[in-house]
């Protein structure tokens, strides 16, 4: 079967609540080739996790799913409807943010890894345990033989996440979804886990969806990045292209707003005013328009569609950053002192060190 390993087309996920229908994912499409990594970047409420859960068949029954997802040509949602048992956890697996959500606290680590081998691949108890030991070694756990008979609470956070990764890898999946796999971990451990995922993916020729709120995490680790906001795809591009030629004002703002480790103290941060929208009703216009430096009147009324900005680079914006239209739109807003959505432009003043007024006098 030619074509991508995973093809998601116009995925929509809605939840009916008392306040109205929540459109958690609103028309998301992407392709993922065998052995490739796509990074999905977004804040809470962007729909990134719901997208993953929809693909993993983990959404509750009252979620309304529309659109199509094909894994190696097979219809994912049809498999869900047919209660296909040996797909999730075998060909497509997932690693969550908090390792303890995936681990049973009263079961030994070895048993838990062996379980999926026994259930899905019908391996014997002894054989499965031996393989579990191999897997622990592969995920970089020292003394795997000893660890097999330990309980999750006896392991550190980083070790637990390694165990969870071992569980996810047990049946040699072709696609691994990692949903904020390091957010709950310590700084010095995060990098190790991300590097481990990367190494394993390479070694096994596995595809990966890496979900994160941190653009820095996907940089250098994903082949392609999709930036989501309020259930929409804002920008999608090969990773290097994205960082070199950022087109969407949201992507640009996200990168600018984060403090950098190399900039001097008291550098004023460029804020993104306001907060993410509540995605209840159909939005007219662009969901980011109320917080955007580039917004023009059109942004408030017409929802921009994804347009091409070069090879594999898609962006949904009427006045993309770095283009002539965008530059003019921003210059216009700066001249007017306010954006089409009524944002005060002054707060976006460039990064300048805050005056030394806060600093104490010379060192004593």
């Amino acid at each position, binding site marked *: 079967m030619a074509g991508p390993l995973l093809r998601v087309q116009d995925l929509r996920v809605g939840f009916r609540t008392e306040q109205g229908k929540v459109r958690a994912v609103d028309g998301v499409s992407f392709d993922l080739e065998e052995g490739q990594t796509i990074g999905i970047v977004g804040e809470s409420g962007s729909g990134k996790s719901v997208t993953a859960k929809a693909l993993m068949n983990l959404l509750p029954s009252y979620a309304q799913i529309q659109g199509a997802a094909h894994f190696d040509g097979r219809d994912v949602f049809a498999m869900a409807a047919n209660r296909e048992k040996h797909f999730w956890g075998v060909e497509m697996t997932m690693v969550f943010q908090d390792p303890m959500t995936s681990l049973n606290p009263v079961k030994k680590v070895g048993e838990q890894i062996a379980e999926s081998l026994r259930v899905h691949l019908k391996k014997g108890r002894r054989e499965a345990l031996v393989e579990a030991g191999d897997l622990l070694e592969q995920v970089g756990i020292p003394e795997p033989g000893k660890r097999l008979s330990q309980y999750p609470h006896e392991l550190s956070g980083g070790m637990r996440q390694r165990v969870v990764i071992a569980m996810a890898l047990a049946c040699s999946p072709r696609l691994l979804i990692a949903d904020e796999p390091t957010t709950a971990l310590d700084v*010095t451990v995060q990098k*190790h886990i991300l590097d481990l995922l990367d190494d394993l993916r390479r070694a096994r020729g596995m595809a990966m969806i890496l979900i994160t709120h941190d653009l820095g995490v996907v940089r250098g680790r994903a082949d392609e990045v999709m930036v989501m906001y309020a259930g929409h795809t804002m920008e999608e591009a090969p990773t290097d292209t994205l960082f070199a030629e950022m087109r969407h004002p949201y992507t640009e703002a996200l990168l600018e707003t984060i403090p950098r480790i190399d900039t001097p103290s008291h*550098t*004023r*941060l460029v804020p993104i005013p306001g907060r*993410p929208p509540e995605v209840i009703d159909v939005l007219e216009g662009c969901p980011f328009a109320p917080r955007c430096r580039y917004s023009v009147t059109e942004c408030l009324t017409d929802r921009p569609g994804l347009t091409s900005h070069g090879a594999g680079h898609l962006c949904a914006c009427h006045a993309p950053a770095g283009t002539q239209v965008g530059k003019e739109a921003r210059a216009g807003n700066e001249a007017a002192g306010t954006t089409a959505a009524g944002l005060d432009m002054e707060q976006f003043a460039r990064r300048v060190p805050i005056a030394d007024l806060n600093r104490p006098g010379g060192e004593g």
Partner: protein
Amino acid sequence: MAGSGTAHLRTADDVVLRVENLVMEFPAGRHQVVHAVSDVSFDIRRGETLGIVGESGCGKSTTARAIVQLPAPTSGRVLLDPGTDREAELTALEGEGLRQVRPRLQMIFQDPISSLNPRRRVRDIVAEGLAIWEGESGDEQVRAKVDEVLEAVGIDPTVAANRRPHEFSGGQCQRISIARAAVLKPEILICDEPVSALDVSVQAQILNLLEEMKSRYGLTLVFISHDLSVVRNVSDRVTVMYLGKVCEVGNADAIYSSPAHPYTRVLLASAPEPASTVDESESAIGDEIPSPIHPPSGCRFRTRCPRATDRCATEEPVLQELAEDHFVACHFPS
């Protein structure tokens, strides 16, 4: 690391907070003791921001709680305005005496939702400090002060004052927390991971707000975070902690541009986008953080340290001056 010592304490007369030899231990059952904070000292000058950075379990939040005596430390001294006529030794006070000095030291917390009483209205929450010391939230003067501080944190009092916390987003709740703390015009504001629970796009708003509040109300900040970039952005001076000990103290830019302690270097190399001053490969250390019940002898970082020798196991390094306002507790600093 593991540094004890007080070489880095300053004698300047504008020191507003001095923490000396702070120790915090908790019983852990079976006659065991968690050594959460072990002999930590630092000071802060008026108008300064001290960043405390470290991973979970390094004792940074415990230190913050110990400063405000919630709960009081096992031993050590916490002094407000030392050497002045307003000097107060928090660790020597209790009951009413402690309550009287409390307003001088306020705190904001990580969880914006849990920080606000869900059953009270925003006006009453922010007015609480004034209600305790000046008059109830209905008073005209109190009302005016509450409105003023709400506006200062970017919350419109006419819209928000009569609402309850669950109607606000995390970022807005954090603004309300800042307003509650600022209304008493404290000398020191301790911020314990104030932006860690917030969305990326909201963090900068709160960080900028803290800077504004600092100059507007003349605050001195203690800023605690696991995020090195955030700490650098707000801090004048930085303290790096590991397993209840201080590794490195000094001017923020000095620590980030010439990190001397191996642990500081690991932290800088582990960031998603590592600092340019260290090599990314320096992040390669073991994952196992030793138990604070049985911390390693000598330098507590030695079990993961690439430079550790026998000396590190037997002799605890003491903070020593490396350059002007740059102290490190390591036998083999960079």
